[in-house]
């Protein structure tokens, strides 16, 4: 297994010098096995107040109908669909990290995939509630399923992207949940075998009787790989289909073929930003600096630069194509976007998504935790505005100038959105308390090959090229969890 060493040039994925298998378990299970600290309680109180607001606002919407929102005859989609697409987009990072990075053998995913997948599931829950409340009559939500005509409607229209979306989102949610839970089984078993009493009984039920025998692990790995293989096109298909909700309609500003790749890049962009927002805080509060290292943060920042730039190119391409199409409606939609009454939203989107992520080209900013955290929030603000711009500016000035209108949200619109953020954080904070936030078994796999101490041993053995060793030691400077003095001695 570790018959040969990993190249010394690669940065370590686990830092620290006295890490053992037992220490990994202890460190990661710390928040699960101990009482929560003050920071957690403060976060939880705020988040659950937000969740309460969400319950009130959604119940009010159900009770009064979507007239409670600020929608009007012209702007029929606004904060609701903006919120939906925003959450679905955020929900892309989890499966992307666990599936795509697994296929590409990016081992650094091992310590961030668990919480990213949890985040995915919670984000999709937030997104799904938007869809249901947007239906207006949520008790008839089953009408989106293909049910026989006697049930009240005709068969659903299989040519409609909204129906595809129902299939895509529900498949994505259930497959992500399955992927996440199957990966959790060995770690739940770890908690079970360390716990006593009722706690052990509860974790025992949820561990499905996991034993860790050879065959269990062998099949587990086969299953994980195949799930990754099928989840990769799945994650791409979901936002593709979400974008088709817009792209197949004949509305200037929506009716473009660039939408699928543009939406997918945007989804990865905002998903990684949200992962950073959460993990930068979690690693500090839960003391996981040795497992979620500066290398992880830098890698995620690099993905943010890449996807942010793709999104930027897409914005410019859209503009160019609007002009090049020769269609005056298309041209007007874009001129109106950037200089019309919603110019501020457009430029907010441009600044937050295209300009500010470019700051990450600077190594200093990329490696600053504070700057990264702020930028990750800026990205998500920008991505919210992107959806708002696409939806509202394309609708608010339609073909008849007499029906041109502006959109102003009501307190319900605002509360549903703010509340959904509260709901998301409530679920995430509860997750941190009851399940390991890092995949314990997968991190253990890295200990003997990709940890700082394994590489230290390699250096001490003295068979490594001096130049490479120097380069490696230099690369360690960025880590806030590495003690440089150790290397000065060698």
């Amino acid at each position, binding site marked *: 297994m570790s018959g040969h060493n990993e190249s010394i040039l690669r940065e370590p994925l686990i830092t620290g010098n006295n890490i053992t298998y*037992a220490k990994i378990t202890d460190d990661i299970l710390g928040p699960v096995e101990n009482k929560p600290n003050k920071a957690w309680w403060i976060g939880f109180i705020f988040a659950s107040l937000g969740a309460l607001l969400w319950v009130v606002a959604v119940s009010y919407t159900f009770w009064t109908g979507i007239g409670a929102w600020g929608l009007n005859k012209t702007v029929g989609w606004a904060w609701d669909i903006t919120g939906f697409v925003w959450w679905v987009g955020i929900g892309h990072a989890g499966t992307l990290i666990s599936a795509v990075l697994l296929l590409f053998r990016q081992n650094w995913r091992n310590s961030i995939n668990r919480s990213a997948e949890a985040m995915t599931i919670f984000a999709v829950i937030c997104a799904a509630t938007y869809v249901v409340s947007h239906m207006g009559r949520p008790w008839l939500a089953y009408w989106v399923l293909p049910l026989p005509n006697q049930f009240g409607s005709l068969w659903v229209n299989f040519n409609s992207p909204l129906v595809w979306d129902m299939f895509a989102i529900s498949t994505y949610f259930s497959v992500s949940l399955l992927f996440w839970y199957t990966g959790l089984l060995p770690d739940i078993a770890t908690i079970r075998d360390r716990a006593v009493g009722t706690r052990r009984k509860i974790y025992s039920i949820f561990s499905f009787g996991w034993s860790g025998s050879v065959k269990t692990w062998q*099949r587990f790995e086969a299953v994980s790989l195949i799930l990754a293989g099928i989840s990769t096109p799945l994650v791409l298909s979901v936002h593709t289909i979400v974008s088709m909700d817009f792209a197949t309609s004949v509305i200037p500003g929506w009716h473009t073929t660039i939408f699928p790749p543009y939406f997918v890049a945007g989804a990865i962009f905002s998903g990684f930003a949200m992962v950073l927002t959460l993990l930068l805080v979690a690693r500090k509060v839960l003391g996981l600096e040795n497992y979620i290292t500066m290398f992880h943060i830098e890698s995620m920042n690099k993905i943010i630069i890449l996807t942010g730039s793709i999104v930027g190119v897409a914005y410019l391409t859209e503009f160019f194509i609007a002009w090049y199409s020769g269609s005056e409606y298309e041209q007007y939609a874009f001129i109106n976007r950037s200089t019309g009454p919603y110019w501020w939203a457009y430029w907010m989107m441009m600044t937050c998504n295209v300009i500010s992520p470019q700051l990450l080209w600077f190594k200093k900013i990329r490696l600053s935790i504070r700057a990264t955290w702020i930028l990750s929030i800026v990205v998500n603000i920008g991505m919210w505005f992107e959806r708002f711009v696409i939806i509202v500016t394309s609708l608010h000035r339609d073909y008849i100038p007499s029906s041109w209108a502006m959109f102003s949200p009501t307190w319900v619109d605002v509360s549903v959105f703010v509340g959904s953020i509260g709901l998301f954080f409530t679920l995430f904070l509860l997750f941190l308390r009851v399940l390991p936030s890092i995949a314990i078994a997968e991190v253990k796999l890295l200990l003997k090959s990709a940890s700082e101490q394994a590489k230290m041993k390699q250096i001490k053995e003295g068979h490594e090229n001096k130049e490479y060793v120097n380069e490696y030691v230099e690369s360690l400077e960025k880590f806030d969890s590495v003690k440089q003095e150790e290397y000065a001695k060698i």
Partner: protein
Amino acid sequence: MSNIKYILGSFGDPDEMMHGIEKLQENNITIHDVYTPMPIHGIEAKLGVKRSRIDIAAFCFGITGTCAAFALIYFCAVIDWKVNIGGKPSFALPDFIPIMFELTVLFCAFGMVLTYYASTHLFPGRSPRVMDLRATDDRFVIAVDAQENVSHTVIDGLLKDAGALEVKYNERKYISYE
């Protein structure tokens, strides 16, 4: 004959455990199973565990999903109730593809994972068959059937030579939780 049912060699390092497996096999001692806190690559070959056929199952489930989706859409939109949408053909295959794809993934994922659960006997509430509680934490445990392999001192010696931190003699196969 003693009451000892299983001898467990508990290792702190996966490479030493692999070494222990080799040692036991050289001495014709059959290994019941190995319990580890993480997957060990290359162990299947050593223990003669056959390649998993779960990929074949996954393919079959996936293709079932594709066909099910096609059959459903074809029945609804082409046979049972044709909806005239601007005079366009009701058998619009390109429009069927997204749902066919999604159901392929859905059937494949659920079929495969449920097959996995069934074949490895995993289900909610199943009492865990655990021989050593630390096998899910930091120990790599080789289990040897003590009834089949009678030379206990030899086994003990081999395991310790290979680097076992502890050798346990269990009188019960699994540690009960009661």
